[in-house]
């Protein structure tokens, strides 16, 4: 769906880390106040808030917003597993584009070390008998059979993301050396062919984004390029006789293709226009699948992209240059808004040593267990100073 006349007013995120010494309230407050500071406003200027996480107990969202002020604003809690952050952004976009408010806040958070009383859990049973990495490992198993994918392709992409995170001060994993594919392959197996270093750490963190009309953003950020939210497309599973539509596992990879097609149509841009992309590499073989599902390459060419380094910084289409879920981290709830924070930096030319030169159009994609998929497109107006 097209998100007309929406731009980023402010963004912020905490570091994604183990955070065993910090509370979920502290993390969410840091991100919430951070984005208000970045936007130069306080909560009195915010018309609506969309907050959420995957495992939070009842009432948490409203209680967290109280840390930022008591202004009577409507607060709506969102839960869409790993996709929660981008779904919160989507609802905040519509709150502004529909005219309900001038400024909307999206704030998502999670703390795996600190499951509060009443947090959600899965009932043991047939559907949850299998550990979640297995669902992605089964994709990988079949792809290796059909396409000749090698564990080395997966290791090379994982090493790319580990090394990208070395330039991101807010990343979970910041290796003190160049990570090699051999090191990734030698880490302990989790679900064959996936090894520990091919999967995302959870930990904790929070991220927040403020949205407003372009006029309002121009007034607040004079002389800066405007970062527009062009479109957001959210889908859940469609019937596919080849797919086992069971349980909390993530649905067929084609869901991302459906969401991407709709997002590109609504935005009036195509995959060839994307300068930088952030995708759901909770397990690295997903990134390989999504190159094709998002149209960043033709079907069957993803392995070639991995071999040639096309998606590394400096390549034709850099993907996950903030480290991706594998190395920036994936606390689940805040992951999507961390992608948006990063896109704000990239499109304003402020991404430092991981800057994609001249980046104008960016894509964020996530999938969420259950399952759903979401693709959002962003574009810069004006020049980077």
């Amino acid at each position, binding site marked *: 769906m097209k998100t007309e006349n929406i731009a980023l007013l402010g963004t912020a995120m905490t570091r994604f880390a183990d955070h065993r010494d910090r509370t979920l309230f502290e993390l969410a407050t840091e991100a919430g106040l951070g984005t208000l500071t970045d936007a130069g406003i306080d909560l009195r200027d915010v018309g609506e808030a969309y907050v959420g996480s995957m495992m939070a107990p009842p009432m948490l969202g409203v209680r967290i917003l109280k840390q930022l002020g008591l202004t009577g604003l409507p607060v709506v809690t969102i839960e869409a597993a790993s996709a929660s952050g981008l779904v919160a952004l989507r609802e905040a976009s519509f709150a502004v584009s529909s005219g309900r408010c001038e400024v909307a806040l999206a704030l998502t958070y999670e703390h795996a070390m600190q499951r509060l009383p009443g947090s959600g859990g899965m009932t*043991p*049973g*047939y559907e*949850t*008998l*299998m*550990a979640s*990495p*297995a669902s992605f*490992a*089964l*994709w*990988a*198993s*079949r792809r290796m*059979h059909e396409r000749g994918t090698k564990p080395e392709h997966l290791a090379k992409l994982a090493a790319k993301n580990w090394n990208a995170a070395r330039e991101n001060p807010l990343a979970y994993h910041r290796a003190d050396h160049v990570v090699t594919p051999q090191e990734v392959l030698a880490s*302990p*197996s*989790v*679900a*064959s*062919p*996936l090894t520990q270093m091919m999967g995302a750490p959870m930990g904790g963190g929070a991220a927040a984004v403020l949205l407003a009309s372009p006029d309002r953003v121009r007034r607040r950020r004079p002389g800066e390029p405007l970062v527009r939210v062009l479109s957001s497309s959210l889908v859940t599973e469609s*019937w596919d*006789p*080849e*797919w*086992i*539509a*069971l349980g909390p596992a993530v649905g067929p990879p084609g869901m991302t293709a459906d969401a991407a097609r709709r997002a590109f149509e609504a935005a009036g841009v195509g995959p060839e226009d994307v300068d930088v992309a952030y995708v759901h590499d909770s397990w690295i073989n997903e990134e390989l699948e999504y190159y094709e599902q998002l149209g960043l390459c033709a079907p069957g060419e993803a392995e070639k992209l991995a071999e040639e380094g096309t998606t590394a910084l400096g390549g034709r289409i850099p993907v996950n240059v903030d480290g991706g879920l594998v190395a920036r981290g994936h606390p689940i709830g805040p992951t999507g808004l961390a992608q948006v924070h990063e896109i704000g930096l990239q499109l304003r030319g402020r991404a430092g040593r991981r800057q994609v030169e001249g980046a104008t159009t960016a894509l964020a994609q996530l999938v969420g267990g259950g399952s759903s998929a979401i693709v959002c497109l962003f574009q810069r107006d004006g020049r980077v100073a």
Partner: protein
Amino acid sequence: MAKRAIEPGLLRLPDGEGRELRLCANRCDGCGVVFHPPRPVCLACHGRAMSDAPLEGAGTLYAFTRVAMAMRPGMRTERGYWVAHVDLDGGPRVQGLLAPDVAEPRIGMRLRLGIETVRVEESGEEIVVHHFAADEARA
């Protein structure tokens, strides 16, 4: 001792009087698509007339992975187990464990349905789940 499936509506266990092990499934009366576990509405045509159609569980290995973490506490305890997607003969693709005796899975190999105990209740009741074992006769 008595056996019980890990969830209702998943498995039809043998009764010792000639009834064979089956996977519970249903078939859409309108378009013929078969679902395991049974569904209230046909996912293909949205028809609601569904008939019981238990599956024998012979099939072909579609994809597999060896999971190197323990199963849930109180279940099969050894570290590491295989999970598979299996294309059932005349039925849907289903998910299940591979039996411990499948040493080297390969895509395309023939498998047959079996059960294994994942947990024993204090009452002595055995909680079972289905798995797929190598089909010696048709390998």
